[in-house]
């Protein structure tokens, strides 16, 4: 309730091949923990976390894939209206990097025009088995205007930093998404007809 500190809310989606650590990155960022054997489909499908910058607060509404990337059945709804995306690959897998590039292209084609995209090379704690060179990914990111970091959800290295960089880059304009000022859908009770539940969203 701080009047001086404006809160901006953004939808952020995670993309990338199965098992590259998308959910683990979110859980590390939101809950500060890491599980060695994270189930592939988990309840982290919709989480929120805030990042405080100097004069503003950025609230991320984070969407995980819920496993729908496995058979390439992620619904268009998933990245619709997303203002930020983290495209994750596993630094030990060239295939996952190739897949990440495909996701970046998909976002550039179908995503919001001003979407902020971050490329994250995850599992930095396993750098001994690295297959994707930092310089290669860095160059790709620069050529395509992406933020880039190598991260480890396990050790927490660069996880908060990644979200802070995204938060800084996001435009802080009053209307952040079409139809903003969401229409509240409040529970229906038997007295609904007798009381005014809320004002409309326009």
């Amino acid at each position, binding site marked *: 309730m701080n009047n001086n500190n404006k809160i901006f809310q953004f939808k952020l989606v995670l993309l990338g091949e199965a098992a590259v650590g998308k959910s683990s990155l979110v859980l590390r960022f939101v*809950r500060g923990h890491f599980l060695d054997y994270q189930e592939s489909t988990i*309840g982290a499908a919709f989480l929120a976390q805030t990042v405080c910058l100097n004069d503003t607060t950025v609230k991320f509404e984070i969407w995980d894939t*819920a496993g729908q990337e496995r058979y390439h059945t992620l619904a268009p709804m998933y990245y619709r209206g997303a203002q930020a995306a983290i495209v994750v690959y596993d630094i030990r897998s060239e295939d996952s990097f190739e897949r990440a590039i495909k996701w970046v292209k998909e976002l550039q084609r179908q995503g919001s025009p001003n979407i902020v995209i971050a490329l994250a090379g995850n599992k930095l704690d396993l750098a001994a088995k690295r297959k994707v060179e930092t310089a290669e990914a860095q160059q790709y990111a620069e050529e395509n205007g992406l933020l880039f970091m190598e991260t480890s959800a396990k050790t927490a290295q660069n996880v908060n930093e990644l979200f802070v960089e995204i938060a800084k880059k996001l435009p802080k304009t009053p209307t952040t998404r*079409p*139809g903003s000022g*969401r229409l509240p*859908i409040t529970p229906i009770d038997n007295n609904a007809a007798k009381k005014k539940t809320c004002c*409309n*969203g326009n």
Partner: protein
Amino acid sequence: MDEHYDCIVLGTGLKECIISGLLSVEGKKVLHMDRNGYYGGESASLNLNQIFEKFNMGKPTDNLGSSRDYNIDLIPKFILSSGLLVKMLLHTDVTRYLDFKVVDGSYVMPKGGKIQKVPATDTEAATSSLLGFFEKFSAKKFFVFVQEYDEAKPATHQGLNLKQVPMRHVFKKFGLNDESVDFIGHALALHLNDDYLEKPAHDTLVRIRLYAESLARYQKSPYIYPLYGLGELPQAFARLSAIYGGTYMLNKPIEKIAFEDGKVKVTSEGDTVTADFIVADPTYFPDKVKKSGRIIRSICLLSNPIPNSNNAESVQIIIPQKQVGRKSDIYIGEISSSHCVCAKNKYIAIVSTTVETDQPERELEPAYKLLGPIDTKFVSVTDFYEPISDGTSDKAFISTSYDATSHFETTCEDVMDIYKRITGKDLVLTTHPNILKQQEEAAAGHQQ
């Protein structure tokens, strides 16, 4: 893919996705497949390229703008804001994946052919010329009766047993004339035809109350509509299902469905999976459904808002059957770029009705007259299918096709019916305990 599931769901239409979501939340192992490469089946919203392809109309013309700006509903409906679909969205917490807008207004075409706004507030009611068409005094007495009727309190019944007396009798008792009856029965109770007049009045009373409660929620109209089109709804419920472990596969042609040893066996692309039971839309079981009517839907792209609709961004227009010498009403639903369903300065108006003649498109003429110039039209006549059996003996639970109603009440009633046939219990539409648990966990995580 040689696996056993509790349930296989075929088709990602809204009904199938809601059922898939409900079953997954309850811990059932669900495999959900669709022969199409997109979500939604008949209840999808398509972009321009997809819809031109579907209707074999070649490539979209340049004046329509970018294909991806479009999400065109194949089945036009609005959501009653106090109706069953909203209850299901709240029950499953799927509301959080969607953004809604209130529909600007509902109109009706009375005698004379010029559309009139259905009053949404007392002020509008006082100034509406529509109310000049019927006797205000009798109508007011009738609405007070509808609002105060309480089954448990005989004093409110005014001697009418609404479970028995036909609606026609109730209208007569309140001295309402034909035009008032037409307005109440079609613009408020949203009946498709006049069959209801001979049926017990209670159903109509419930419908009028639902309309009033929905209107009270956001005032402008009783309807809400999701940004990016109705196709978001099945996607949102599919996401719910996936979050609770449901597996999704698109582009899966279904070669064979067999029932052996008390199991359902589904073969796609050479692989066979088994399940205890199967849920599907009627297109996957042509030999287990019967035809019961036809519906015509005409999707019209316009460059202007519908004339006389006060330049509304979204509007419903009801043409009651009697006004145009028909048995069933014609509906028009209009939405526009503010709903992220089309390019700027374009409007999508979908006209639909139950087919009554062998020249279906001519039946839509009275609606076309209201629309002004039409840029492009996509017209389809589809059969309405319903399952021959209820599925309890063969373990194939088949939904009905989407009907001609302008809202989702019958859609949800079918979902609830299928749910009951599958589980043997009623679907209780309070927030599901498993959803509450997840909400609490999310809240706990958020406090850190």
